[in-house]
């Protein structure tokens, strides 16, 4: 068997094409990484895999036959973690699933299956946090705008949630880290990429971009947040556990200085 390290374009389809190639050419895969992150390995050749939708589709179909809906979701979500080396873990898990005749996708005592499940859970937590902590601000052009910097690439996962919920308003959720966003125009959600003025920020409501009343509503919300606190029950440990500091940047109630 030929030893190789595979490089792909960072998409799920690209990754699945790697699996197809590995099986077809009987490769001994040392590593699978997205472009730009691959580290050259002395003992194996580096090969670039060109994404092929037919091949990736076949792998997915084969996988579907041997695993539950929940597992397929876990695989997708773990993939979106963009965690270093997750491709290799996914590869091990999928190899294990293909090698057994009985379904084993729920066998959490297999290390790769467990790691994928745990990673998917982390992604799921981040997804829920984004659904909770996204704060829209109304812009001058009547668009509800939110900027986020999620740990994982969750925009594709939160799309439907926001589409169902905010069906009658224009909105944009923009991932500042990955430099793309979702834009809803009252009929469909599209991926967009914008040249954003950094001063637009994650919170606040600079007069250059936002509706004149925007800050007033942020103040009302902060007033509300402070009024519901019960001092005699203060429990900052619990508070921080639910609301880790790194998410505070999104939250008006935690940032806005009372003017």
């Amino acid at each position, binding site marked *: 068997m030929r030893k190789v390290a595979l490089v792909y374009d960072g998409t799920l389809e690209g990754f699945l094409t790697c699996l197809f190639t590995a099986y077809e050419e009987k490769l001994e895969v040392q590593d699978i990484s997205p472009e730009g992150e691959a580290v050259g390995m002395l003992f194996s050749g580096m090969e670039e895999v060109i994404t092929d939708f037919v091949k990736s589709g076949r792998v997915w179909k084969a996988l579907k036959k041997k695993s539950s809906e929940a597992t397929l979701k876990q695989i997708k979500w773990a993939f979106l973690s963009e965690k270093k080396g997750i491709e290799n873990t996914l590869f091990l898990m999928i190899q294990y699933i293909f090698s057994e005749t009985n379904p084993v996708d729920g066998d959490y005592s297999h290390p790769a299956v467990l790691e994928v499940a745990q990673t998917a859970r982390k992604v799921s937590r981040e997804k829920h946090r984004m659904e909770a902590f996204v704060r829209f601000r109304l812009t001058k052009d009547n668009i509800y705008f939110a900027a986020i910097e999620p740990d994982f690439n969750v925009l594709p996962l939160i799309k439907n949630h926001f589409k169902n919920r905010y069906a009658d308003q224009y909105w944009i959720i923009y991932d500042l880290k990955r430099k793309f966003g979702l834009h809803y125009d009252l009929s469909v959600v599209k991926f967009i990429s914008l040249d954003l003025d950094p001063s637009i920020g994650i919170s606040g409501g600079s007069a250059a971009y936002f509706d004149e009343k925007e800050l007033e509503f942020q103040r009302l919300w902060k007033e509300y947040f402070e*009024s519901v606190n019960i001092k005699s029950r203060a429990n900052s440990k619990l508070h921080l556990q639910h609301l880790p500091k790194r998410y505070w940047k999104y939250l008006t109630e935690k940032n806005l200085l009372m003017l």
Partner: protein
Amino acid sequence: MLDKILNLGQNPKMNFDRIKEKLNILADAAKYDVSCSSSGSNRKNTGKGLGDSSGMGICHSYTEDGRCVSLLKILLTNHCIFDCAYCVTRKSNDVKRAAFKVQEVVDLTISFYRRNYIEGLFLSSGIFKDADYTMERLIQVAKKLRLEENFNGYIHLKSIPGASDELMREAGLYADRLSVNIEIPTKSGLKLLAPDKNHEDFLKPMKKVKNEIMQYKQESRLIKSTPKYAPAGQSTQMIVGASGESDRDIMYSANYFYKKFDMKRVYYSGYVPVTTDPRLPSIGSEVPVLRESRLYQTDWLLRFYGFDVRELLNQDFLNLEMDIDPKLSWALRNRHLFPVDINTAEQQMLLRVPGIGVRSVGKIMQARKFRRLNWEHLKRIGIASNRAKYFITCSPGEVALKDSSSEHLKQIILNNSASKFRKTFSSQLSLF
């Protein structure tokens, strides 16, 4: 005068300073109602309206005491003709009073919802004029939100004790959840602390709502287009530690509400002293947060773990142990049922093992399909066994800590566990 304060009609320009002041007063007065749930509804956004409450409820923030903020929870007004001793809003209390206009609540809800601050509205009120008059105003808010704003977010309305059947019927057409807070778990306590209210006034709206829910369910089985009626059901709340009640009193009442009125949730709210009334704990007394969480644990055991309330609390066992959780407490009183074999025990029995939760039971059931599990496997699938290990075995031959007395075992477990309540507990103990 009240009529003028509460007048309806559009509010062309929001006066932000005035609204802010009202929000301060009327959110502050509503915060003692601990229910924050916004789940369990199934109101989908069809026809491109605003909002959707078909999923799990979301906590959009957390207060500094760690409670979930998911709804705009306010009173319509804190004017009240009653004088319930435990309540900040009581007539005789010297506090600032305020009242929202119906339209103001609608506007606030919509503006907050559109910014993704909240899942919806939780509207309660002091009783002004009479029960029906108050209930009618609450319904107006919900109705406007649904019909004029096409709002599909979550609406929780407080049922005002004594409100007419007719109004309760209407309320359920617009609200996702209705609740009447019983507040005081015993009849005698209620007489003492809320002399204006009588037990029947609480039960009446509960009964009405329950019957309506049942009727709507039956009809919707026959006719697809039956409107929804309070799809997230009803809930109630009891104050803990205000009237000298036992844990058994509280949990038996809770059990009664779950069984008799199909309650979705019962909430337990540690009494926060708000008065110098000699009938009640004095200002500055500690809020019984530990007791409150033991009650919630008990509530979970009833709802998700298959326990009967009489197993956990009874004539011989009136109050929960504070230093250990109710499941461990039960297990220590029933040592003859343990240890159980993790590979063969029935699911119901696994659920009763201290330290193993619903999720862990699921993992065990799943993993043991593939192989006999040993301690190493348990660790690998993420089962914490520091507590469970005294109550389970992985193979028939294993010897468990059988000879140790329950009292001794409890000490071992307590010494080994960094209980998150340890600190609270010792600080409460030091009071004695």
